[in-house]
C-alpha cells in the first residue's frame, strides 16, 4: 500500500501532466484552424489544375509523344512509395495509421515480386518503418521539422526530386501516402498514385467539386486556341501537377496531424482528470483511516490506564 506521501506526489505529478496535455490540446486547436484554412485556400488551385489536365489528357491520351508522367514508362517493376507523416508524435495513431497502410502496400508489392523503394517525408514515419524496411529506404527522411507553415516551395522541392529521379529512370510508379483530413475526429490514411498520373481519380474528384466544372460547361464547347500546342501544354503541366499533389498532401497531412493531436490530447486530459479523482479518493480514504487508527490507539491507551 502506497504511503500518504507517495499518493500526494502521484496526484501532483498527474496534475502537472494534465496541465501539459491541456495546453497541447489548445495549441493544436489553434494550429488546426490555421492548417485547415491553408488546406482550403489551396483547394481551388488543385481543382482547376486537375480539371485542365483531365480535359487535355482526354483528347491526347493515346497519342505519341505524350509525357511519361501520364503514360508511365510502360513498365511496372520498380515502385517508389513516398510516405508523408508528421515530425512529432503525441498525436494518437496518426503516424502509425499512415505507416501501417504503407507497410501493407510494401508487403503486397514485394509479394508480387516488384522492387520497392521508400522515401519518407517526416521523421515519424521513418522511425516506424526503418526497423522492418530499413533496407528499402533510398535516403534519409525529408526534414520538415523547422517548417512552421508549409509553403509551396517545400512541396516543390520534394516534387523536383521525384521528377529528377523519374527522369533518371529510378522508378516506374510513384505512390504518395498521406492522411486525408475529413474532420477533427476523423483522418483517413490514403494512397495516391502520382506518376503516372491517375486520371480516374482526377475525374471523380472533379465530380465532387462540381461548381467549377459546371461553370465552364455552360457555354457551347469552345474551340480553344492552344499556345503552344495541346501536347506541349500538357507536358508542361504534368510535372507541375506533381508538386500540386504533393503540396495538397502535405497540407492535408498538417491539418490531420493537428486534428489527431487535438483529439488525442483531449482524451489524455480527460484520462488524467479521471486518474486524479480516483487517486484523491484513495488519498482521502487512507488519511481518514490513519486518523481513525491514531484515535483508536490514543483511546485504547487511555482505557488501559
Amino acid at each position: 500500500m502506497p504511503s500518504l506521501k507517495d499518493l500526494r506526489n502521484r496526484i501532483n505529478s498527474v496534475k502537472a501532466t494534465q496541465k501539459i496535455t491541456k495546453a497541447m490540446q489548445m495549441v493544436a486547436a489553434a494550429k488546426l484552424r490555421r492548417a485547415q484554412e491553408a488546406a482550403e485556400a489551396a483547394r481551388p488551385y488543385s481543382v482547376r489544375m486537375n480539371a485542365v489536365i483531365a480535359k487535355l489528357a482526354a483528347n491526347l491520351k493515346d497519342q505519341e509523344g505524350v509525357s511519361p508522367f501520364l503514360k508511365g514508362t510502360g513498365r511496372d517493376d520498380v515502385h517508389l512509395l513516398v510516405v508523408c507523416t508528421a515530425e512529432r508524435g503525441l498525436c494518437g495513431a496518426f503516424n502509425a495509421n499512415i505507416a501501417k497502410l504503407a507497410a501493407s502496400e510494401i508487403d503486397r508489392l514485394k509479394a508480387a515480386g516488384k522492387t520497392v523503394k521508400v522515401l519518407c517525408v517526416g521523421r515519424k514515419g521513418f522511425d516506424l518503418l526503418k526497423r522492418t524496411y530499413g533496407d528499402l529506404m533510398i535516403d534519409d527522411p525529408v526534414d520538415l521539422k523547422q517548417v512552421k507553415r508549409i509553403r509551396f516551395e517545400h512541396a516543390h522541392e520534394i516534387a523536383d526530386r521525384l521528377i529528377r529521379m523519374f527522369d533518371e529512370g529510378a522508378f516506374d510508379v510513384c505512390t504518395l501516402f498521406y492522411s486525408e483530413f475529413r474532420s477533427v475526429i476523423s483522418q483517413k490514411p490514403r494512397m495516391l498514385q502520382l506518376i503516372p498520373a491517375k486520371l480516374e481519380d482526377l475525374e471523380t474528384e472533379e465530380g465532387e467539386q462540381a461548381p467549377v466544372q459546371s461553370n465552364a460547361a455552360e457555354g457551347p464547347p469552345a474551340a480553344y486556341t492552344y499556345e503552344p500546342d495541346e501536347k506541349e501544354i500538357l507536358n508542361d503541366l504534368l510535372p507541375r501537377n506533381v508538386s500540386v499533389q504533393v503540396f495538397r498532401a502535405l497540407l492535408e497531412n498538417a491539418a490531420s496531424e493537428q486534428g489527431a493531436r487535438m483529439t488525442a490530447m483531449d482524451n489524455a486530459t480527460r484520462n488524467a482528470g479521471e486518474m486524479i479523482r480516483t487517486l484523491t479518493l484513495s488519498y482521502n480514504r487512507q488519511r481518514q483511516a490513519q486518523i481513525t487508527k491514531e484515535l483508536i490507539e490514543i483511546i485504547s491507551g487511555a482505557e488501559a490506564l
Partner: protein
Amino acid sequence: MAEAIQLELVSPEKELASRLVKQVVVPGTEGEFQVMPDHAPVLTTLKPGVLAITEISGAETRFFVRGGYAEVANNQLIVLAERAIPLEQLSAAEIDREIRWAQEDLEDARDEEERRKLSERLDFLIQLKQALQLGH
C-alpha cells in the same frame, strides 16, 4: 457585348483575385497578349512576367507571375500561377533568385530554339529588376 471579364487569379497558397475587370495583359509562353471581353477561347502556358490588370475603375494592378497556365473561355480568364505576387511586394532578392534560375535553365538548354526563348526570359527579368530599382 460584355463590359467586363471575370478574372480568377489563383496560386497554390491562395486565391489572389476573383473579380470582374476591364482587361488583362497575360504573359504567355508565345508572347504577351491582351484579354478583353469576348476574347476567343485560348489555353496557354505562362512565362515569368507581369500580369497587368485594368480594373473597372481604370486603375491598374500588376502581379508578377511564374509557371502555370492561363485559360480564356466564356468571358472568364483563369490564371493559375505557381507563384503570383503583387508587383509592389516583389523584392530584389526574389528577382535575383528568378534570374539565377533563368541562368541555370539557360545553361541546361538543349537546342537553339530553347536557348533563344530562355535568354529572352532572362533579359526580361533583368529589365524588370532595373525598372523596379528605378521605381524604389
